[in-house]
C-alpha cells in the first residue's frame, strides 16, 4: 500500500501539479488586460513602480522560475488586488469557511441522497420511487442561483426563520448548505437506488432474510453496504467540489469563503491569487481522488496492479 501511495504522489500527483501551474501561469498572462488596468488611467511612472514591486518587470520565464522557487518554500506571493495581504493568508482565512460549508452540504447530500435512494429502491416503480427520484432530480435541474433565492424567499422573507445573508449563527449555515448540497442529492440518490436494486436480488440478501433478520437490518446492515460502492467513487470529486467552495452560493448568501476569491481573482487579473487558488484546488481534488483510489484499492486489492 505504501508503494502504491508513493507511486501516486511522485509519478502522478507532482507532475500533474507542475503541468497545472505551468499552463495556468502562461494562460493568465495571455489574457488581455493586467492587474493594474483601471477606468482611470494610471501614469506610466506609477505603472513602472507597480510592475517593479511585483517583479513583473523581469522576463516572463524568470518570473515563472522565481514563482516555482517561491511556492516550493510555501510562499504564494502577495495579492495584486489586496496589497496588504498575501495569497497564503487570504486562502487560510477563507478556506475554513468553504470547508465548513462544504462539509454541511456534504452531510446533507449524503443523508438525503442515500435515504431517497433507499426509499425509491424498496418499491421500484411505485409512487414513492417516482416521487423521490423526481424531487431529487429537481436538485440537478434547478441551479443554485434559482434555488438559493427561492429558499431565502420562503424561509427568510416569508417566515423570518433565518437570516438572508451572513455567516454568524448556526442558522446562517442552513440555507447555503441545502443550496450547495441539493445538486449532489440527486446523483447520490440515483446511484444508491441503482446499487440497492442490484444488491437486493443477491443471494446473501435472501440468506439474511431466511435467517429471520428484520427488514431494517437487511437493508442497512447488508444491502446498503454493497449498494454504496458506486456512491463512494462519486464522493471523491463531489466532496472536492463542495469543499472547494461555490462562487454562486457564497455570493447569494454573502459567505466569506474561498469560492469568491477563485472567480473574482480571474476578473481582477490578480495573477498570484489565481495561481494560488488553482494550485490549492488542484491539490484538494488530487487528494480526494487519491483517497477514493486508496479506498477502492482496499476494497478491491486487484486494483493495486494498475
Amino acid at each position, binding site marked *: 500500500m505504501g508503494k502504491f501511495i508513493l507511486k501516486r504522489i511522485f509519478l502522478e500527483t507532482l507532475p500533474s501539479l507542475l503541468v497545472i501551474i505551468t499552463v495556468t501561469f502562461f494562460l493568465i498572462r495571455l489574457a488581455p488586460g493586467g492587474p493594474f488596468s483601471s477606468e*482611470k488611467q494610471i501614469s506610466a511612472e506609477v505603472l513602472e513602480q507597480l510592475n517593479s514591486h511585483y517583479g513583473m518587470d523581469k522576463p516572463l520565464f524568470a518570473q515563472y522560475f522565481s514563482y516555482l522557487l517561491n511556492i516550493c518554500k510555501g510562499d504564494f506571493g502577495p495579492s495584486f488586488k*489586496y*496589497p*496588504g495581504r498575501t495569497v497564503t493568508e487570504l486562502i487560510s*482565512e477563507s478556506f475554513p469557511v468553504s470547508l465548513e460549508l462544504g462539509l454541511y452540504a456534504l452531510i446533507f447530500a449524503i443523508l438525503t441522497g442515500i435515504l431517497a435512494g433507499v426509499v425509491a429502491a424498496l418499491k421500484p416503480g411505485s409512487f414513492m420511487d417516482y416521487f423521490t427520484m423526481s424531487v431529487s432530480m429537481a436538485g440537478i435541474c434547478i441551479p443554485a442561483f434559482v434555488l438559493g433565492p427561492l429558499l431565502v424567499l420562503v424561509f427568510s422573507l416569508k417566515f423570518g426563520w*433565518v437570516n*438572508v*445573508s451572513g455567516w454568524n449563527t448556526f442558522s446562517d449555515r442552513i440555507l447555503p448548505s441545502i443550496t450547495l448540497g441539493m445538486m449532489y442529492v440527486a446523483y447520490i440518490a440515483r446511484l444508491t437506488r441503482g446499487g440497492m436494486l442490484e444488491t437486493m436480488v443477491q443471494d446473501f440478501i435472501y440468506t439474511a432474510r431466511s435467517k429471520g433478520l428484520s427488514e431494517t437490518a437487511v437493508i442497512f446492515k447488508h444491502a446498503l453496504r454493497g449498494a454504496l460502492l458506486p456512491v463512494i467513487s462519486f464522493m471523491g470529486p463531489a466532496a472536492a467540489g463542495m469543499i472547494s467552495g461555490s462562487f454562486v452560493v457564497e455570493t447569494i448568501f*454573502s459567505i466569506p469563503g474561498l469560492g*469568491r476569491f477563485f472567480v473574482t481573482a480571474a476578473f481582477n487579473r490578480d495573477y498570484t491569487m489565481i495561481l494560488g487558488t488553482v494550485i490549492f484546488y488542484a491539490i484538494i481534488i488530487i487528494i480526494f481522488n487519491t483517497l477514493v483510489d486508496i479506498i477502492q484499492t482496499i476494497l478491491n486489492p486487484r486494483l493495486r496492479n494498475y
Partner: protein
Amino acid sequence: MRLTGYFIILIGLAGIHLSCTNRESAVEKATKNKILLFGNQTEPQDLDPHIVTGVPEFQIIESLLEGLTILDPQNLSPLPATASSWEISDNGLVYTFNIRKNAKWSNGDPVKASDFVFSFQRILSPALGSEYAYMLYCIKNAREFNKSQIDDFSEVGVKAVGDSILQIELCKPVPYFLSLIAHHSWYPVHPPTILRFGSIDTRGSKWTRPENFVGNGPFILDSWDINKIIIVKKSGTYYDNESVSLNGINFYPIENNLTEERSFRTGQLHITSSCPLNKIRWYRSNQPQNLRVDPYLGTYYYLVNVNNKPLDNKNVRKALALAIDREALTEHVLEGGQLPAASFTPPNVAGYTYGNALSFDTTEARKLLEEAGYDKNNPFPPVSLLYNTHESHHTIAQAIQQMWKIYLGIDITLINQEWKVYLETTQNHKYDLARMGWISDYNDPNSFLDLWITDGGNNRTGWSNLTYDSLVHAASLISDKEERFRLFSEAERILLDELPVLPIYFYTNVYLIHSSVMGWTPNILNNHNYKFIDLE
C-alpha cells in the same frame, strides 16, 4: 421509526422557528446600541489612504482618519477638522494651517504638523506607486518629486513650523484647494506605525491590521474579517468626541445588490450601497421613505474614436448625439432618477452649470447625417458600440442602438467584452464607440474638463484641440471664480461642438436607508462624515 423521524424534524423546525422569529431584528438591536449597519459593496483592497482608490475603501477610512479639513455634508464647503484654522496668502499660493493642539492619534500621541509632512512625502514617494499621488501635484515640486526628477523632499512645498503649524506652498492657485484636501489621499498616517512595519515607501505592509492600526479619526479599527465584516468603534482620543453620536459602525462587504436589498428588507442593514434596478419601482410605491435617489457627481457617456471613419466627421458625431432621446432613456429604461446629460459637466459643480447644449432633435440629426454625405445612395458604413459586460450597459446600448436605427436609419453592432479586456481595447483605441463613466473625486469642473486635453491619460478618443487645451490650462492658473467659469464654459462649448464624447446621463446614487438613520444628508460627492450621523 417513521414517527420518530417526523418528530425529530418537527422539533428541529420548531426550535429554529422559536429561536428566530421572536428576536429583535439586527437593525432594531443596533439602533439601541447606536451601531450603524452599513452595506459596503465589496471587500476593501486595503485601508491605507495612500494606496486605495475605491469608494468602499473610502467609506471605511473616513471613519478612521481625518485630514486637515472635512466637507460640510449640506453644501460640501470645507470645515475645519484636524486643522482648526488656516490663513491664505494674498497670491493664493501659501496656505498656513494651525493643527489642533488637542488632536490625538488613537494611541494617545499628539497629531503634529510633521505627521502631515511625513504623510505627503509618503504618498509622493515614487516607490510607493500611489495611484492618487497626482492629487497632490498642486503642491510646489510635488510632481517633480513623484516623477523622480528631484530627490530631496525639502524642495517640495510642504513645511512644518513647530508642532502645530503646517505650511503648504502651491505651484499655482487652486481655488478649490480646501475642498481638495478633504480627499483621503491627503489624510495623515502615524509615522512611527508606518516605520514599525517597513520604510516610508513600503507598499502593502501590515500597519493597517486592526492590532496595528493607529488613526486620528472619530473611530478606531476594532476587527477585520475578510469578506465578512469590518467593525469600527468610537475612539476615546478623538478631539471632538462629544459630537460623535454613533458608538460604532459595522461595514458588510455584500457584493450582490439583490442580497443586499434582501438583507435590508429583513432588518439586517441600516443603509445599502445600491438598490437593484428592478426594485426601485416597488420601493417608490410601497416604501418611498426608505428609497433615496441622490444626484451624484458623475457622467455616463460614449467615447467616440475620432480617428475612425465615419466618426472622424463632426457632423456624424453631432447627428448621433442629437438622435439620443435621453429623457426617454432615463425615465423608461433606467428609472433611477438619472438626469439626461445635455452637457458633459453635471449641473452645479461648485456653482458651475453649462446649461443644455444637446437637445433631442431628429430632424437636425438627419440633416447633419445627409450633410456628412450619408443617405440612401451612400449608406452609413458599419460602426460598432463597445461596452463592458453588464446588464445595465447592455440595456442602454440596446436602447440607443434602436434610437439610431429608428431616427437615423443606421445599424450599429453591439460588442460586449469582459471588463479588463474592454479596458485594454479602449486604451489601445481599437473601437468605434465605447461606453464610459466618470465619477469626480472633487467638486470642481476642472475634474471633468481636464479629461479631454490633448494626450490626457483618460482621453482615449484621439481628439485634440489646442484652443480647448489652452482654455482649460488658463482656467487652472487663475483663482477668480467668474473668470475661471467663463474659460471652462468656453472650453465646454468647444467640447460639445466637436463631440469626441456623447454625454448620455448624469449619475444618481440610488440606495436604501432605514428611517432610524439621522443626518444622512444627500450630496453630489456621496460624502457622509460619520460624526454627523446619528441613530434614533
